[in-house]
C-alpha cells in the first residue's frame, strides 16, 4: 500500500506565510515611507500576492 504523501514544502510555506503575516500585522508605529504607507502594509497588502502566486506555482509544478 502506498501512503498519501503530505505536501510538506507547501505546508512550510503556509506556516511562513501565516507566522510572518501575523508578525508584520502586529508591529506598531512604523514610519510611512513607501508610497505613503509603512513597510508592513506594503509587504502584506501588496507583495503578499506575489508570494501566494509563486507558492501555488511551486505546488502545481512539484506537488510538494
Amino acid at each position: 500500500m502506498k501512503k498519501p504523501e503530505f505536501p510538506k514544502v507547501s505546508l512550510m510555506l503556509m506556516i511562513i506565510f501565516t507566522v510572518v503575516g501575523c508578525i508584520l500585522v502586529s508591529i506598531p508605529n512604523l514610519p510611512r515611507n513607501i508610497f505613503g504607507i509603512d513597510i508592513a502594509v506594503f509587504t502584506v497588502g501588496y507583495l503578499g500576492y506575489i508570494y501566494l502566486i509563486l507558492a501555488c506555482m511551486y505546488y502545481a509544478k512539484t506537488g510538494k
Partner: protein
Amino acid sequence: MNSQFMYIVIISLYFIAMIGIGVFFSKRVSDDKDYFLAKDKLSAPVIGFSFSATQMSGSTYMGTIGTVRGMGYSFVPSALSSAAAPWFCYVLVGDRIRKISARFKCATIADIFEARFGRITGIVSAVIIIIASIPSIAAQLKAAGTAFEVLIGIPYVASLFLFGGIVVVYTLLGGMFAVAWTDLIQGILMILGMTILLPVVLVAAGGFTAMHEAYAVFNPNGISFQGSQPLMWIISGFLVWGFYQIGGQPAAVTRFQTTSDSGKLKRALIYSIIFESIIFLFVSMIAIAAGALIPELKSSDMALPMLIQTYLHPILGGVVLAAALGAMMSTVDSVLLMVSSIFVNNIYIKAFNNKDISHEKVTSLGRTITVIIGVAGLLIAIKPPDAILWIITMGFSIMAAAFTFPLLLGLWWSKATDKAGLIGIISGAVAAVVWYVLGFIKYHSLSVFIGGIWPAVFGSLISLIVVILVSKITEETNKDTIALFFDDSDEVGA
C-alpha cells in the same frame, strides 16, 4: 441615452448570455453525474474560475470595497487571506478529495464524511450544510435585489425575482456545466470590471502615493494595520478567510470532485490564485481610492456605485455592475446546486434508503429540488426574519468550525476514528454558535467577539481537540475502510 438606460442594456445582454449558457449546456446533461458534477467534463480554467467565483460572493465586490474604505488597511490582511484560500484548499484537501471521490464514487462533501466516518456523520454533515447554506442563498438574493433597486430603479421584489429567476433557470437547465461555465464568464467579467475601474480611480486620486496621503487625511487610523480594529480581530481575520475556507465553503470545495485528473486540478489552482489575487488586490486599492476620492458618503456600501457613476462611461459602468451581479450569481448558483445535490444524494437516497432510484429520476429530482430551494430562497429574501439573519451571519463560521479539522484529519490521519469525526463536527458547530451567543450577550453585536477571537477560530480549535482526544479513547475505524481510504496507489485511485 442616460446612464441608467445603458446599465439596463448591458445587464440585459449579460442576463441573456447566462440563460443562453444554461440552454446550450442542457443538451449535455445526460444523467445525475452530469447534472451535479459534470464529472471529468470540465477544463482546468473552468474548474479554477468556478472554485474562486463560488468562494467570492457579492460581498467581495460591493461589501469589501465599502469595508476597506471604512476600516482602511486593518481589513487588508483579511483580503490577502481570502486570496490565499485556493492555496490552502487545493493543497491541503484538494488532491485527496479528488482521489477519494473517484474511489468511493462521492458526489458531495457529505459523501466524503460518510466514506470516512460512517453513515451518521454523512447525514449530520449534510443537515448542517443545508441549514447553513439556504439562508446564504437568500442573503445573496437580497443583496442583488437591493443593488438593482438602488442602481437601476427597479422595485426590490421585482429585482429579486428577475435576478433569482435567471439563476434558477440556468442552474436547473445546465446543472454543473452551466454553473461552472457561467462562473468562468462571471470571473472574467469581474477581472475586466476591476481592470477598467482601477486605473481610472488611481489617476483621479493623483497616483499611488497621493492616494495614500489623501486617505490618511480621510482616515488617519486606517493607513496602517493597527488603529481601527483590535490586534486579535485583525489576526483572526487573517487566519479565518484563507485557511477556514476548507470547511466553510463546501460549495467551492465540491469543485475538487469534478475531475479525476491530478494534473488538471493543479493547473486549476493557478487559474484560481491569479483570479483571486487580482480581484482582492484591485478591490483593496479601489477601496482606498474611494476613501480618498469620496470622503463624504452616507453608506459605505454605496462606494462602488458612486465611483462607477462619477468616473466611468455608462457602458463601462454597466460592465462593472454586471460583474458585481456576476459575483452574486456565481455564489447563488453553486450553493443552489450543492444543496440540491446533498438533498437528493445524502438525504433522499441515503438517509431515506431510496437506493433503487434510476439515474433519470435522480436528475429530475435534482432539478425539482433546485427550483424548490431557489423559490424558498426568494421567499425568505422578500423579508428575512430575524432568526434567518442570525443564521446568515453564522453560516460560514459554523461550517468552518464544524468541518475544517474533521475533514483535514479525516483525509490525512488514519487514526481519526468514526466517533471522533462525528463528535468533532458537532462540537465545532456548537462551540461556534456558543461563541456568537457569548459575544452577543457581552457586546450586543454578532460581529464583536470575546477577546476579538472569531467564532470559526474558537469552534474549530474545540473541534480539533475533540477529534484528537476522542480518537485516542474510541475504537479504531474498520481496517479495510482505512486501507482503501489511505492507499494512494494509482490503480486503486482513478
